[in-house]
């Protein structure tokens, strides 16, 4: 018996990292929002490693934060260790990474959802989507509750027809012992969406008390931990170390002897797994000459003895897993608490989506997160906030927020997914970004907070902080460009002591700062009377001045890129009508229906000549019907 249980502006299905951001974004933008979870205990759950951030992923977290999302603050409030990685490799690839306390992370996020104005959090299994004509209307739960809404965001992760595989054992299920979702997959197919199948995996968890850390190398956090959020001011926290050890020859021997029992090699797994997250058996086979592989032991939280065995993802049978673990130095007497497993699940090939993350087929239906073929909490959250924002804008009949590849890693991520699709679970990487020197983690707020403000997600306090920071940066850059230093002996000595060359005449501070060997802190030491600026402002000034040449170059590239990006392709375009397009280009364009000429040019199989013909055709059409267009 179905009954009308409520009417909303936006419904979000799922409370993983995508669902949480989507629901919060929609509610904070003023929409009456419902978020449904399969299990109230699993809000913002981390089914895999207890870490947030790292190269490109940390960039995503900063960007989510800059737009007004929750992941950054939530990580800052609950982490147990923080490290800034890549510090020696250039400002664009500095990457913040935090070890999370899984339980705390969940608890705090749940509390934020519960206390958010206009947001209802309910436990329910969605069986079916309600679709009328070409538009979504709401959802129906297993218990017959009908919730209506103009926009629905699906963020069901790996739950759709999930199947767990451990060696020769396999059963239907979601991650970490939860129930899978079966009905919704059918419902998606019924409304005409295609589904594909992916695979991923997770390593075993072990009891800290059974580990001999004296045989491992300690991995402490940074002495001065950074925060993800531009709003966090927290500086000190008690940190818990991780530990490094290595597999041994014995480990590899056991793996080789048991390969025939691996579902990957027996053909039991059909889904495609990610290359960057290979199982240990995969590593041993593919890199046979490597005598050992590194293994990190990472605490799952402050109040638990469970430790995550990073680098040891496996779907070998349980008995083999235990045997393998005990060949690793420090784990000779280890007790396994949870068994590693592989999970196969349905995903929605993302080429069926628009850049707004709305499905091309059904109006008002959005999709975000692992369901779209990605992997990673950060990738999920990044799509979640965009889907939430665009669901809210859709309800208001406003234009969607689309971040360009030159705006943010989020833009790179979504454009890659929607334009190119993916044939393995997609992970963001800094090498995927063309304009990496512009998309730094230190300037995410300068890139995105204004956009977050325009759509109504950035609150007054965040906006005030942002404005003040921008102002201070400009002031300080101007000051450095106006202040000069004379070629006095003490100045020359200072320069020489830094391995720099002497100056011949009065020299502007900004020009000194451009020298690779002179830092902002050096200038402060040299001059003495420097303004007392927040660290992040000084950092920003330094990066902007020092890398000006490269930044300028990338800005020029972006200008060229934007020209094609801003050339919109009208929705009514009929590719079959365009003579001269290559057959492959025609098929791809018909299938993907890119929004702009720039997007079209990134589709594989669409050549520059095809683009030229498309431009001429568009101009032809525009002139034929100048009034209506």
């Amino acid at each position, binding site marked *: 018996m179905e009954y009308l249980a409520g009417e909303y502006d936006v419904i979000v299905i799922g409370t993983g990292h995508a669902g949480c951001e989507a629901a919060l974004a929609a509610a904070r933008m003023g929409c009456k929002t419902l978020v449904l979870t399969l299990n109230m205990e699993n809000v913002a759950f981390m089914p895999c*490693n207890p870490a947030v951030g790292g190269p490109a992923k940390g960039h995503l977290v900063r960007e989510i934060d800059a737009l007004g999302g929750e992941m950054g603050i939530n990580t800052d409030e609950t982490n147990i260790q923080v490290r800034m990685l890549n510090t020696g490799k*250039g400002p664009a690839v500095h990457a913040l990474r935090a070890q999370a306390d899984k339980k705390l992370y969940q608890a705090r996020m749940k509390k934020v959802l519960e206390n958010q104005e206009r947001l209802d959090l309910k436990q329910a299994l969605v069986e079916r989507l309600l679709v009328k004509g070409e538009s979504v209307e709401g959802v129906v739960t297993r218990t017959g509750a009908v919730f209506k809404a103009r926009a629905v965001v699906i963020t069901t992760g790996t739950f759709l027809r999930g199947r767990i595989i451990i060696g020769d054992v396999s059963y239907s299920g979601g991650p970490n012992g939860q129930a899978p979702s079966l009905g919704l997959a059918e419902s998606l197919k019924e409304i005409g969406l295609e589904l594909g199948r992916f695979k991923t995996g997770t390593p075993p968890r072990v009891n800290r008390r059974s580990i001999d850390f004296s045989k491992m190398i300690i991995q402490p956090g940074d002495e001065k931990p950074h925060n993800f959020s531009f709003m966090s001011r927290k500086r000190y926290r008690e940190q818990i170390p991780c530990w490094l050890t290595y597999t041994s020859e014995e480990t590899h021997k056991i793996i080789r002897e048991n390969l025939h029992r691996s579902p990957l090699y027996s053909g039991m797994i059909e889904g495609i797994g990610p290359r960057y997250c290979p199982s240990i058996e*995969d590593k041993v086979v593919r890199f046979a000459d490597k005598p050992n592989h590194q293994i990190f032991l990472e605490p799952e939280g402050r109040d638990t003895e469970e430790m995550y065995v990073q*680098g040891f993802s496996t779907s070998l049978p349980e008995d083999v897993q235990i045997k393998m673990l005990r060949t690793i130095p420090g784990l000779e007497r280890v007790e396994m608490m949870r068994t590693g497993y592989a999970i196969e699940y349905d995903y929605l090939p993302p080429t069926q989506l628009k850049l707004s993350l709305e499905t091309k087929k059904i109006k008002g239906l959005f999709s975000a997160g692992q369901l779209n073929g990605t992997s990673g909490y950060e990738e999920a959250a990044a799509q979640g906030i965009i889907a939430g924002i665009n669901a809210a804008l859709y309800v208001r009949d406003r234009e969607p927020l689309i971040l360009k590849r030159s705006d943010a890693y989020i833009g790179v991520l979504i454009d890659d997914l929607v334009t190119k699709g993916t044939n393995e679970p997609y992970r963001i*990487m800094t090498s995927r970004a063309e304009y990496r*020197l512009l998309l730094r983690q230190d300037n995410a707020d300068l890139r995105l907070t204004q956009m977050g403000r325009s759509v109504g997600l950035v609150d007054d306090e965040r906006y005030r902080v942002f404005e003040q920071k921008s102002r201070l940066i400009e002031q300080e850059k101007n000051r450095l460009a106006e202040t000069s230093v004379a070629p006095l002996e003490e100045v020359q000595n200072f320069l020489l002591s830094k391995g720099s060359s002497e100056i011949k005449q009065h020299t502007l501070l900004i020009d000194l700062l451009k020298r690779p060997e002179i830092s902002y802190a050096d200038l402060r030491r040299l001059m003495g009377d420097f303004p007392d600026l927040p660290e992040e402002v000084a950092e920003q000034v330094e990066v902007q001045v020092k890398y000006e040449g490269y930044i300028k170059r990338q800005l020029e590239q972006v200008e060229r890129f934007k020209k094609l990006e801003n050339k919109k392709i009208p929705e009514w375009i009929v590719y079959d009508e365009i003579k*001269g397009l290559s057959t492959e280009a025609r098929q791809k364009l018909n299938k993907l229906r890119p929004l702009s000429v720039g997007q079209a040019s990134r589709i594989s199989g669409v050549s520059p*000549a095809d683009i*030229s013909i498309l431009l001429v055709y568009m101009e*032809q059409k525009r002139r034929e019907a100048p009034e209506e267009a």
Partner: protein
Amino acid sequence: MVDDTIAAISTPIGAAGIGIVRVSGRQAIPIVEKIFRSLKKRKLADARNYSLLYGHIVDLEGRVIDEVLVSVMRGPHSFTAEDVVEINCHGGVVAVRKTLETVFRAGARPAEPGEFSKRAFLNGRLDLAQAESVMDLINAKTEKSLKVAVNQLEGKLSVEIKKIRAELLELLAHIEAGIDFPEHDIEEVSRSQIEQKTRDILGKIDALIDSAGTGKVFREGLRTVIVGKPNVGKSSLLNALLKEKRAIVTDIPGTTRDVIEEIVSIRGIPLKLVDTAGIRETEDLVEKIGVQKTKEVFEEADLVLFMIDASTGITEDDRDIFRLVKGKRNLVIVNKTDIRRDIDISDMEKYVEKEDVIETSLLHGRGLDKLEARIEELVYSGLAAGQEELLVTNIRHKNALEKARRSVEGVLKALDAHLPTDCMAIDLKEAYDSLGEITGETVSEDLIDQIFSRFCIGK
């Protein structure tokens, strides 16, 4: 893309006479200004629309390339509705090509097939009825250039470019893997390793640029062989090319030296003339041609000057020789046309282009001009045999190589300035993409594939 400035030769390239280099785009006037010296010291920027300015095109080092007339047409009153500058060159093929190259160096980029027309249409200069023909034009020209590209790609150039790209990718992937997976035990590339590899790559790019177009010909000379039956006039040709009467071979055929080489300069192009003693006045011609030494000479030849005697018509001897040389780049020289002109060379015509048949009367010094002009044209259009093999004949390719070179130099500069590796990655990636323009491969997935296949990465 729509905003940058493009250039191309807008007239079919003929052997002599006028050729026009057309430059179109926002920077057209400033770009040509950089390389144009008006005789009356006038500035292009001040020139009236459609007026002609007389002066010289000079290269960026200030050397004069050609005497030219330049006209300025400002948008929207031009063919493309953008600022257009047309350079009318007078010095023949060579000058036109050199001028175009100089325009590229000054900041324009090569026009895509049909791009002038495309711009004209997009900017409203052509009417709707012409849209279809613009699309056809893009198509036809693209197909043609693709064909050329494919031919070239099957050759050595693509092999070389792919090698360099593979090296760039390897270095880049190593750097990037370290950046994207900092905590995996990937051995970091040291700065000295980066420097060494980068210098190595730079050397290889340089070698390719050197070979571009005329590079090798000018360095090593165009290996040219004169063949023909006895008494056809080979010595006369040789001497005419040497421009002095002197015996360059011994009197006794095939006895003292097997091969004689002489270098002569034809319109500035060094021709390495190879005479084969073996094919000189002997009785048993074909047998002699079969000897190993002679074969080698043919194999190495970039150009064969095959002489026929118009007074005797085509004989069996001629056919025998032609069979041996028809695979090479041939110029057929029909000599002694003062005696008789109407000889039938139809058996050879299917192997030889019309422009490659040259009538001469060496005794009266006639036809030599045409021969020299044709040789010059072959060299500058990259059609001489040695050039096909040696790679870069296409100005677009050369441009791409030079772009790649600048990027690779950027890496060395960054190393020098102690900049971090992610700055170098930008340049490496640019170099990789520039070279990819030549082979048509710029998909960035290469990098990711390389990272995952080479490094053991994962959690």
